[in-house]
Every structure is written in C-alpha cells, then in structure tokens.
C-alpha cells in the first residue's frame, strides 16, 4: 500500500509541477489579453471539467498512442507514454489543469491593473511586473488553485484507467487500487485505501480553505 500511496503522490506532484507554470501562462493570457480565439481556448481548457473523464482518457489514448500525433513524435525520441507512469501524469495534468486555471485566472483578474501600470512607469519590465506585482498579489488564489489541482490529481481515476491502465507496480494509483480491490472482492483492503485517500483529500482541502480564509499570504 505504501508504494501505491508514494507513486500516487509522486505522480500528482510531477503533474502539479507541470500544471502550475503552464496554467499560470494560460490564466494570465485569459485574464489580461483580448485576442481572437480566446473563447475557443477557454472552452478547450474547461472541457475536461464537464466531459466524462473516460472520454477524456480516450482522447488522450488517441493522442499519446503510438499512432497518435504526440505519441508517434515521442516514440521517435524513444519515449513510450501509454500504459506507463507518464500516461498517469498526463491524465492528471489534463484533468487538474482546468481547476488550476480557473482559480489562477480569478485571482489574476482581481489584481488591479493600476498597480501593474504604476510598476511599468517605475521602469519594470513585463516579467518583473508579473513576478514582483501581479503574482504576489494573486498568490492566495494561485496557491489555492495549486492545492485543488494537486488534490484532483491524487483522486484522478477515469482518464487514467483508459490511458494508463491499472498495471500493478507500474500505473496503479490510489484510486485505481481502490477500484481493483473492490472488483476483486478485497473489501478490507479497499477500505484501508479509502481511508488513506480521505485523509490526503481532507488535508489538501483543509489547507486550501485555511489559505482562502487568510487575508493575505506572507
């Protein structure tokens, strides 16, 4: 069980490390710029929130499979994705990205552009405006979104089972292990795993709520 928990946490952490910078870039673009195709990107990013996770997994399978657009390219570089830990991470990234982007975008939109404009007149470059002004002022929402994304990644199931399978010792996450134990009639094991999953989810959400309740994040 320990190895399953550690694998799940490690995969979810890798996923979150990928989600945060990409999600921040998407959130900033959506919050601060007006451009053609913005609605399309908004919709595509939010899609995994409303689509059946299994359908999302199927799309990932098509994209990341050996004949897929991305999969064939990666295979040329000697990287297999489908039914490996990479597929687990890919599913986590896609499923947790919308939650992070929504939180981060809302937080960035709350930052008064007056502060950014003043920083520009004080000689700040655009990266400095973002890292010294925008990001610190949006930090509460960004950290909250990060924790939600992490929690979502830890609990991911539907897309993962399609694109990564449930291969013991290779791609079995906490959620998949619970499902496997129930399927095999190993109820006590399923309950033990369930308790671990509840504790992790509770801790993540509790920290998230604590951050949201705080006036500022120092």
């Amino acid at each position, binding site marked *: 069980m320990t190895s399953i928990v550690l694998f799940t946490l490690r995969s979810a952490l890798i996923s979150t490390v990928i989600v945060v910078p990409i999600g921040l870039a998407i959130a900033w673009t959506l919050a601060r710029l007006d451009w053609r195709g913005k609605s399309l990107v908004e919709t595509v990013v939010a899609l995994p929130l409303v689509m059946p996770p299994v359908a999302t997994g199927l799309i990932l399978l098509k994209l990341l499979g050996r004949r897929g657009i991305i999969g064939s390219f990666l295979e040329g570089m000697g990287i297999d994705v489908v039914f490996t830990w990479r597929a687990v991470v890919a599913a986590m990234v896609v499923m947790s990205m919308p939650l992070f982007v929504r939180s981060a975008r809302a937080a960035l939109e709350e930052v008064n552009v*007056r*502060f950014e*404009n*003043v920083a*520009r*007149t*004080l*000689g*700040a470059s655009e990266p400095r405006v973002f890292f010294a002004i925008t990001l610190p*002022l949006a930090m509460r929402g960004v950290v909250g979104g990060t924790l939600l994304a992490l929690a979502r990644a830890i609990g991911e199931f539907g897309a993962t089972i399609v694109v990564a399978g449930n291969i013991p010792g290779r791609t079995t996450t906490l959620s998949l292990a619970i499902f496997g134990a129930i399927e095999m009639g190993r109820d006590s094991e399923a309950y033990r795993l369930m308790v671990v999953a509840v504790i992790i989810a509770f801790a993540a959400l509790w920290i998230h709520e604590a951050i949201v309740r705080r006036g500022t994040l120092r």
Partner: protein
Amino acid sequence: MLALDHVRVPLAHFELDITFETLSRATGIFGPSGAGKTTILEVIAGIRHPVSGHVVIDGAAVDDVPARRRSIGYVPQGESLFPHMTVEKNIRFGVRDHEAEPFLQRVIDVLEIAPLLPRGVGALSGGESKRVALARALVRSPRLLLLDEPLSGLDRPLHGRVIDFLIRVRDELRVPMVYVTHDSAELGRVVFETIFIDRGSVVAFESE
C-alpha cells in the same frame, strides 16, 4: 516641454481628441468628471495607446517608447501603493542603482516620510499614502511628474498640507508636473498654466 498633437482615443461616449503644448513647469488640466483627463495622463505615461496623434516630451516624440522607458513619474488617482510591500520597498521599487541614493534621500527629506519607511502600506493614513506615492514617483528623477487628482479621498484640512508638499516638489526638486483635477480651487496655488477640457477636447487655455 510637453506637447500633444491630435492625440485621439475612443472613449465610451465620445472620442478624445487633444492638442496642446505647454512650456510651463506646472501645468493644470481642469475639467468635469468624465471629460477625459485621466486618459490624457495615461497616454502621456505610455500605459494607454492612442489610435493616432503624437506625444512630444522635451522635443522628441515618445509614441514608440514603452512606459518603462519614458522616465515619467505617475501618481494615479486612488490607492496605488503596492499593498504587499513596506513603504521603503515601494519607494525603492524603481531604483536600481546607488547613484540615485542622494536624490532618494532628498525626496524622503522634502516629503518628510523617513519615519514611515518601515511601515506596511495598510498602516498609512490617506495623506501619508499620497506623500509616499509621490516620493515613489519622484525618486527616479523623472523628467515629468503626472498627478491625477492627488487630493481626492483626502479630508479638506489635509489638502493645504499636501499642496504645500507639491509646491516644495515643484520649487525645491524642480520636477515639471502636470496636475489633473476637477476642483479649480486646488489648481491656483500649484500650477502656472491651466488647460480646460470638456468631452475630450481643449476648450480654453489660461496662463499666469
């Protein structure tokens, strides 16, 4: 010193179309709320881009110069101090080299803000916030200082005190300024020339 040549910006209810030139060390822009005064300052500062026209400062067009390179101090209307920084960090935000240190100390002295430096922005009164915002805009030795309704939100008794500081900035630090307001009583003591605008156009010009 400062000229706007047919600067056009579409606004919600009319199009701003401004042309004026001023050589004064202190110029007032006066007009009713919603006349386009703030837009004019934003265009001069480089944080809003006109659809056409030119902004000329010290004889050179700055239309293609980004805000961060215009060397303009801007004090916008309302709260503008970075709330996650102390007063000192706010003031030093735009200072990148030690050469600015003597002028920075002079600004701190003139505006009497040395005791405020370690404080958080949230612990400042309205008048103190204005002085700190003014100091932050000044410490980079800007070639022009833009003040957008610097007395708004302050109690009447504080007006005279802030105006005294603005006069010290004008006369002791000798930074040229453009002062925007909708209250004509404020302008008399500070500016030498006043441009009157209404619905995005210059309607009168007055010089001392």
